[in-house]
């Protein structure tokens, strides 16, 4: 346990020392929120069912944080540690392999949660957020969403041969997903695009978070929950079978 704590703290420090990781996980979603917020404000809009624009979009920005941290950052860190031999060196100590991976999951989860917290706090201070659902519902949905997307990040880190290809492929997966899932684009997408977007994990993350954030019930989101839970299981199995330490 002490090793896990120490390693997680160290990895956290290292994450915070990487300007790119910090900017894309914590800064960029905030920038997007403030940008659109300054354009549209957060007054109740009839078309949005009386919700403000920022209210409507904050679950999407949260999905964005999950995507950058869980997909891009996690896949990049894990694959580069493997490629450089960081894992090799750690495995030559009494450290248990699950501890090494758990530290990465913990760090990225904490950073994702921090990214969401920043959005909510700034959103509340600047735009007076109206959370209609309850945090007790939103938080488990956030955990499930994060873990599923992390799983995808691990799969990319496992199946890609080099750190470079893992990073590139994570971006190739992430960026179209960011736009098509409705996570940053406020307007409803054309029907056809929406249909295709149903295969994208981030779409389900956005729908689940948005639904619960706006006071929906879990029972209304069984499709999303099923999709994300299924994705998590598949990703864990695929990673377990394909992950290499070196």
């Amino acid at each position: 346990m002490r090793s896990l704590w120490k390693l997680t703290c160290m990895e956290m420090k290292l994450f915070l020392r990487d300007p790119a990781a910090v900017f894309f996980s914590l800064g960029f979603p905030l920038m997007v929120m403030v940008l659109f917020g300054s354009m549209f404000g957060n007054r109740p809009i009839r078309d949005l069912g009386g919700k403000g624009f920022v209210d409507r979009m904050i679950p999407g920005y949260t999905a964005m944080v999950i995507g950058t941290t869980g997909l891009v950052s996690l896949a990049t860190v894990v694959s580069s540690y493997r490629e450089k031999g960081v894992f090799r060196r750690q495995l030559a100590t009494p450290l248990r392999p699950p501890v090494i991976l758990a530290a990465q999951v913990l760090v990225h989860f904490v950073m994702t949660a921090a990214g969401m917290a920043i959005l909510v706090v700034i959103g509340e201070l600047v735009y007076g957020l109206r959370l209609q659902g309850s945090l007790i519902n939103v938080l488990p949905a956030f955990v499930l969403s994060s873990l599923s997307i992390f799983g995808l990040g691990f799969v990319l880190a496992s199946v890609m041969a080099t750190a470079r290809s893992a990073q590139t492929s994570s971006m190739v997966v992430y960026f179209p997903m960011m736009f098509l899932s409705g996570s940053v684009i406020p307007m409803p997408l054309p029907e056809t695009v929406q249909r295709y977007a149903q295969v994208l994990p981030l779409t389900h993350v956005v729908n689940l978070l948005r639904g619960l954030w706006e006071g929906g019930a879990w029972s209304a989101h069984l499709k999303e929950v099923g999709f994300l839970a299924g994705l998590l299981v598949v990703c864990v199995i695929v990673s377990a079978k394909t992950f290499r330490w070196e």
Partner: protein
Amino acid sequence: MLRETDMDEEKAKRSERNVAVRVERLRKTYNSVVAADDVSFDVHEAEIFGMVGPNGAGKTTTIECIEGLRRPDSGNIRVFDLDPRRDGYALRARIGVQLQQSALQERIKVWEAMELFASFYSRAADWRALLEQLGLTEKRNAAFESLSGGQRQRLFVALALVNDPELVFFDELTTGLDPHARRAMWELVRGIREKGKTVFLTTHFMEEAERLCDRVAIMDRGRIVALDTPENLIRSLGAENRVVFTVEGPFDPQPLCRLPGVTRVETIGERIVVYGRGDMVVVEVVNALASKRIPFRDLRTEQPNLEDVFLTVTGHEMRD
């Protein structure tokens, strides 16, 4: 009768206690490449055991099987009383490992790496003293990515010692070090042995093996082709010392051939090589040249070394 049994038992017990590592018939292949083939040897406690051979000889494979980082195809390995495959974690708590190829996180600082690795073990050495000993104190706040090759190597040696291990593995200990740092590293390794600990190192510098190791295994193409103390290995060659010098003008080798201890004389242009056994050969040769007033220059003696042993037992030179 009783006494004899006692003595045998005593001897058996002593040799049992003295073995830190026992490798029996180790075999490891990668696809169709045989990296280690029927490798057997013991490493004794409190010795510096060296494994030498060219790159690709199977040294790293062997060492990493012993450390429990690789799974042998077949064979038996015991380290202390542990099986590296089954008791890997318990084993790695007691050993120190410097890998040939590894890295740390780019932005981790030297002191952070030491503190982090120390936290992985229940028993820890004073890592500040280790940094001092390895000349890294000034670099304690430097990020890993900013260190030079030699500094990284020294940091990895410090990390290998952070748990005050009973047995330390150094894979290519001094690669990338300048001559000064290399000598300092040899001193450090001897110091580890003085504390009663065991050192297992690999190197492809024959001189390092000869000067530093108590016993040396020569490895070539996945097999151990010779194993003994450096002195015994060299003596087993039965090779002659050589006295080499240069003369000007015509030279008759016959008188030198008749000197006691001299076995033969080679003339290569102006260069004369006198082969002989015993420590007096050089004196005999110099006396003979002086008494016959033959002018000579650049006289030196050459003793056979591990390089010659390698050449003899493998039939080829060390590549690179």
